[in-house]
């Protein structure tokens, strides 16, 4: 069947990013090439300073590459677009809007009327199980709840590609594992192409179909590891052998990069 064929969703074509500061040139990304297939869940790990956030911002259209380009469905990325949603580490909720209004924000910009926008927003608020907090303001929510709202808000505009920049990085371990499970569930229900940045190797393996290991200075892709673990993935898998094998391998590779930097 044609539908089963793997299709390139995002093509990263020799992307280079050079920052020019007072101390001279800093090469953040040194010719990154990557094909992301439709519905793939990519996790990017690597030491800080490897340019993973820069790469995400370039895919999002928030940053321009110095050279090279990114294509989504064959179309060159120029600026932001609602087919690419972003979840930020700092939640980035609008503090003056309630949970409902935050999730409706992108829908109203699409030109939907209040009733339509509300209906769709409610669907995603229910997905993240915050229906009891629709009228709450962000300041009344915990970190985990805030990030759930941010995820609902990103999903609501129905992007085809979801970019997540260490979304669970600021959360405590328990909330983090809970949100991981929820994210896996959501991804299975509504398949999207995901590009997820983390510095937590376990988190990368439990979520991803493919883990990308980046090396630092200059930032480039070092290794791509396919994760052949069945979905739905559970937290128990973290104690089992195939997971542990992946973990020791990926962790070792990342650690080598840390040592490289410290030299």
């Amino acid at each position, binding site marked *: 069947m044609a539908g089963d064929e793997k299709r390139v969703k995002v093509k990263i074509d020799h992307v280079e990013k050079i920052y020019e500061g007072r101390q001279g040139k800093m090469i953040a990304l040194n010719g990154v090439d990557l094909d992301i297939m439709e519905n793939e869940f990519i996790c990017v790990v690597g030491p800080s300073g490897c340019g993973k956030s820069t790469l995400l911002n370039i895919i*999002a259209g928030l940053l321009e590459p110095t050279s090279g380009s990114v294509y989504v469905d064959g179309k060159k990325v120029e600026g*932001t*677009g609602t087919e690419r949603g972003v979840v930020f580490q700092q939640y*980035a*909720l*609008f503090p*003056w809007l309630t949970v409902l209004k935050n999730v409706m924000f992108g829908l109203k910009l*699409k030109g939907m009327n209040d009733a339509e926008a509300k209906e769709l927003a409610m669907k995603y608020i229910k997905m993240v199980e915050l229906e009891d907090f629709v009228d709450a303001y962000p*300041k009344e929510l915990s970190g985990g709840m805030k990030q759930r709202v941010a995820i609902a808000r990103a999903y609501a*505009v129905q992007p085809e590609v979801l970019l997540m920049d260490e979304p669970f990085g600021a959360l405590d371990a328990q909330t983090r594992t809970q949100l991981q499970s929820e994210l896996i569930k959501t991804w299975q229900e509504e398949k999207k192409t995901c590009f997820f940045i983390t510095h937590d190797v376990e988190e990368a393996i439990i979520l991803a179909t493919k883990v990308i290991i980046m090396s630092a200075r200059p930032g480039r892709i070092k290794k791509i590891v396919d994760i052949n673990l069945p979905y739905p993935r559970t937290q128990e898998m973290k104690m089992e052998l195939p997971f542990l094998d992946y973990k020791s391998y990926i962790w070792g590779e990342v650690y080598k990069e840390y040592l490289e930097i410290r030299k």
Partner: protein
Amino acid sequence: MGSQEKKQGKKELDIIGRIPNWGWLLISFLTAMVLWFWLSINETTARSFPFVPEVFASLQTMIQRGVLWQDFSSSMISVILGFALGFVTSVPVAFLMAWYRPVRYVVEPWIQFIRNIPPLAYVPLVVISAGVGRKPQVIVIWMATFLIMTVTIYQGVRNVDNTLIKAARVLGAKDKDIFIKVIFPATTPFIVTAVRLGVSVALTTLIAAESTGAIAGLGMRIRSLNNSFEVAPMLLYIIIIGIIGITSEKIIKYLERKFTGWQETRNE
């Protein structure tokens, strides 16, 4: 021993906490009265601080002379007009400064330069061009409030969290949407602060503004009472200005709760 000390400290805190807000207000008021009374009997300060009965009597005198209401309304008109002009002009200028760098580079030094000059200093210049009457009063208050409010709102616009702008952009916001739906609401706490400072500056500038040959006004009256050494009504007028200040502060507090209740506060 240490634990006992702690316990006592806690007990003290409890007493402080158990007195309701209005109780503290009462204590504050009574203490002020005692201080005032002391000033009114102390030899060196007695002549400047007549006590309550005399000030109260002067209230009647001023009403009988037919000037109190006239002074009050004249001052209020100048303050409200000057402040309103200051507000409507400072908002666009502050946003332009934050938005366009050339505007910022040209205008900001002017504002910083003029801001620290006491309004009383440039009052004569205003009068030479604007003549006497309502016009120079409004101009002086307008200038002073415009400067302080522009600086405050401008800081607010520059403080808008960049991630919020990014978040709006990826959700499909264009420049216009970002301005109306992100920058403007994010700046409202600073606008409220600007209003608070503006009102306060408008009142403190009142004396300077009314030294432009005004025929009525709270500030003008204080100066003219000074010439006839009428201390009690002077004190009365000073108190009235204070009451206007406190009342406007209360109104602004209410607005603040209404418009910026979403803000994270550090202490509840």
